[in-house]
């Protein structure tokens, strides 16, 4: 079992989460060429080592997280929320 430290819920089993995919993809502008969009949507670096990826805490806070994880050992280096201003939003509410 991989244990993911969700910044809001604490350390949880990865079976609570849904794996999203590569978090390093940068989508081109809407008027970019078909070839650029094809590269962004279909082509992957497929890193063997530490990669940035997204996980959705489906059975928890339901936030999308950006995780740095080794695809060889499954060791997790860092976890943070995908939304850059999520801290502000949650603070304002409380």
């Amino acid at each position, binding site marked *: *079992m*991989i244990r993911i430290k969700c910044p809001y819920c604490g350390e949880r*089993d*990865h*079976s609570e989460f*849904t*794996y999203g*995919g*590569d978090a390093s993809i940068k989508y081109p502008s809407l008027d970019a060429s*078909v*070839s650029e969009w*094809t*590269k962004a*949507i*279909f*082509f*992957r*670096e*497929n890193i*063997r080592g530490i*990669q940035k*990826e997204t996980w959705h805490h489906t059975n928890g806070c339901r936030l999308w997280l950006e995780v740095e994880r080794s*695809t*060889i*050992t*499954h060791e997790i280096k860092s976890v943070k929320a995908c939304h850059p201003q999520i801290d502000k939003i949650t603070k304002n509410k409380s």
Partner: protein
Amino acid sequence: MTRFNAWNVFKNGFTGQKNWDRQWRDPEPKKEYDIIIVGGGLHGLATAYYLAKNHNKKNIAVLEKGWIGGGNAGRNTTIVRSNYMMPGNHEFYEHSLKLWENLSHDLNYNVMFSQRAHVSLFHSPSARDGAARRYNIMRLHGTDGELWDLDTLKNNIPHLNYNNARFPILGAAVQKRAGNARHDSTVWGFARAADSLGVDILQNCEVTGVKRSQNNIESIETSRGTMKAKKVGFAVAGHTSLLWQMAGLGNLPIESHKLQAFVTESIKPLLDQVVVYGVGGAHFYISQSDKGSMVFGGDLDWYKSYAQRGNLPMVQDSAEAAMAIMPCLGRIRLLRHWAGVMDMSMDGSFFICKTPLSNLYLNAGWNYGGFKASPASGWYFADLIANEQPHKNVQNHNLERFEKGINIDERGAGPDPKLHG
């Protein structure tokens, strides 16, 4: 190489079985080959075999970083079937099944191909309609397929859970010519047959670098020295991206995921068929090996990984699925489980194609389906390398199909590799 036949078995019986030749040679690498295939798995060896046999090519090497049969050839659930629907796929897999039907004779090696029927259960009227559509399309293209109603299914497989299943079984879509084969025999058989046609099989020979000019590959650097090659084929399921990047070619429409399989202790004959839980949907497949073990598998581990070991949530899911359709397995003990790293492609279909480099050819992206595909994969890949243009059955299995919008998406799951189970 000594041929396997009744006379040789009889003769060697009198000489203590000491006079059999090696199954394949252990040659020293040459400095230069006409064709180098990287990857000594089922696909690479089948390619080398058909290059030598169908196209009369000489001076071929197959590079394997470990030993023959130590990669995904030894990490699968050995199912062979051709119940595919998309143009290109059904011709390809049907051709593969036809090759399987004669493979033992062709290779002079018993691959223990057993056409015991592949039975996909359905659990709702809409799933039945979906199965009817898929199997009718197969029949229109000359592949066998039939629908079994509940009574027929009960007569053939009496011990599924017909009483209180969470998803009641309504019937099954069946391909009778499908079944399974022995994975080790297949890879050994291809290695032995390729070797007997002069192919050099180089084990413990890991590719460490690819030396290229602007438009082609000049040589391959390996742990056993540098080799020049006129043509190079990549057939390294699971690690294709790494090799592709070694050749300086950037990204591929592939992610590496791991898929687990499970084997139980041996029991008396229980299951005569390959049984699948749901057609192309919820995934669980089970059969009984000739040794009596129940062999089964489920979904991917759902996250990208190069680790050849599985994770526990999927063990639990697969065990639950086993209990859901065959509650009689409740007390059986699991002996082993393992994971294989596979190329999951962006539309769930494979690649047998040319590449941006003039003398490099790609065979990759086998998803869940590499074992059954291996004879046809070798057949068409050899054809591509020899004739330098793809056969019409694999003409769209290339890297350009995504940009053209002609994805071959059998499940309609979209560009998310983990969903193409």
